[in-house]
């Protein structure tokens, strides 16, 4: 009898724990879906009056007169993200290859916590560093050198700050990627007479390609959504950027700068919600594309 009770309560406890785990799992899945739904619901007001395409490709942003063209913001976001990725990619790749293939073991041991610490620095600090160092450098040196009179608050400043922010993040993933490639593969390549560099080029990069794509895909999502550090250095001028040292106004900055203010303007909050939705969807698409490439690569190699 006693034994039965114990068993029952253990089974019950097991079920209860199982139940909570399922609830938590469901939360994780449902939350983003409801967020997307909420954003869509809020922005549908604006979408009723304008088509999505016309909003996305319209260049006019005049909330007072009811014109909400997202094109300048989207383009700014794309420029900042792409430039950041371009700066970060070679640094991340070469560093991770050096750390995992060439460096002595203690170097990696020292670098691991260093990279983690870098990844944990609050983004506002990167923003400050951007204002204090990058912006003056572009305004006082790079701009004049290129023969342009600029403030320094620019796409380039945003991209540099962003690149430095995503480097530790991408680097961590890349190190894992290269570490997970079995040593035997390296040895196989070396033993047919390949040099270290040939092995890296023909074997490791290829074997690690899905992981590399995933790392940069995630880095890109992060860069695209990063708000405060970019906002601080990018200039926030509503126009289509004409060059890297010109100011821009990326989507996250638009939302952060304006939400809560000027809400008396009709449709303004709806427009901001739509930009949030665009951000959400774009990040989702980045992730889907990187997953797709991963699957393709897995099948081929």
């Amino acid at each position, binding site marked *: 009898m006693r034994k039965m009770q114990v068993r029952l309560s253990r089974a019950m406890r097991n079920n209860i724990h199982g139940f909570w785990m399922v609830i938590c799992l469901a939360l994780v899945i449902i939350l983003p879906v409801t967020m997307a739904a909420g954003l869509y619901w809020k922005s549908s007001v604006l979408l009723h009056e304008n088509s999505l395409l016309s909003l996305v490709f319209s260049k006019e942003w005049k909330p007072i007169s009811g014109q909400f063209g997202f094109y300048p913001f989207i383009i700014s976001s794309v420029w900042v993200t792409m430039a950041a990725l371009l700066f970060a990619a070679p640094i991340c790749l070469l560093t991770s290859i050096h750390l995992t293939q060439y460096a*002595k073991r203690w170097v990696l041991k020292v670098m691991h916590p260093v990279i983690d610490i870098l990844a944990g620095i609050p983004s506002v600090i990167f923003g400050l560093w951007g204002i204090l160092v990058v912006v003056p450098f572009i305004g006082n040196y790079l701009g004049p050198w290129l023969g342009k009179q600029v403030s320094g608050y620019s796409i380039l400043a945003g991209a540099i700050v962003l690149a430095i922010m995503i480097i530790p993040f991408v680097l961590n993933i890349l190190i894992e990627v290269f570490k997970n490639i079995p040593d035997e593969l390296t040895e196989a390549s*070396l*033993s*047919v*007479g390949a040099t270290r560099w040939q092995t890296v080029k*023909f074997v490791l990069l290829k074997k690690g390609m899905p992981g590399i794509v995933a790392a940069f895909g995630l880095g890109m999502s992060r860069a695209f959504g990063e708000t405060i550090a970019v906002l601080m250095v990018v200039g926030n001028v509503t126009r289509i950027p004409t060059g890297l040292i010109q100011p821009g106004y990326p989507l996250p900055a638009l939302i952060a700068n304006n939400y809560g203010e000027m809400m008396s303007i009709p449709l303004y909050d709806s427009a901001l919600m739509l930009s949030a939705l665009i951000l959400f969807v774009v990040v989702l698409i980045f992730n889907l594309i990187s997953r797709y490439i991963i699957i393709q690569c897995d099948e081929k190699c």
Partner: protein
Amino acid sequence: MNSTKIHLSKLDLHYGKQHILKNIESEIPEKKITVILGPSGCGKTSLLRCMNRLTDLHPDAHLSGKILIDGTDILSSNEDITNIRKMMGLLAQRPYPLPMNIFNNVAYGLRISGRKKKKYLHHRVEHYLKLVNLWDEVKDRLHDPAVALSIGQQQRLCLARGLAVDPQIILADEPTSALDPQSSQAIEEKFMELKEAYTIVIVTHILRQAKRIADYVIFMYMGEVIEQGPVNEFFENPKQEKTKEYLKGMFY
């Protein structure tokens, strides 16, 4: 007839503070199958890896002594390490095909050493795939990824990849341990054929395999060579106590 291909002399290997190989002295005969035998952890794999200096990859490894190949010490020579390694084909415990298609796996070694003519490559790839009896199975799908092959086929592919750079020595580290009996047999038979042209060194812990294929046996225990000699002598008339004890565990 019985000339020495690899001469190991006063070879010591340390990994950090661990003393892995202790004063190894051995002469590995040319165009014979030499089996390095011993319980796991005795250093037999490390010994094999010394021979093409894969121990260089281990940052804490320290290797001293001499490894003479045809009289040239590969530990002190100024010869390019890639050329030294090219003299030796390596077959690992499990097949590790390179992340590319079947054709390129075999052509890889040739390509990186600068042989790029298509016709030549094709000819060589066919030759070596035939040599390992893989050609008929893969000739219609040379451009499929190598990982699509069965594990036994992969191991033969890896053998072809190693042979394609025209080595003189084949180093094999328990090359059949991941394979099914049939594939194992195929590999063993291949080794018996290949010893006509190559000096073969095989690490194994399978006594019966050693007995089947070896010409010469090196028995290691705790980082030392306990006994070595021609296969018949080794199995039928072991001299050392340790060897006798080890062989007692044998069933047939």
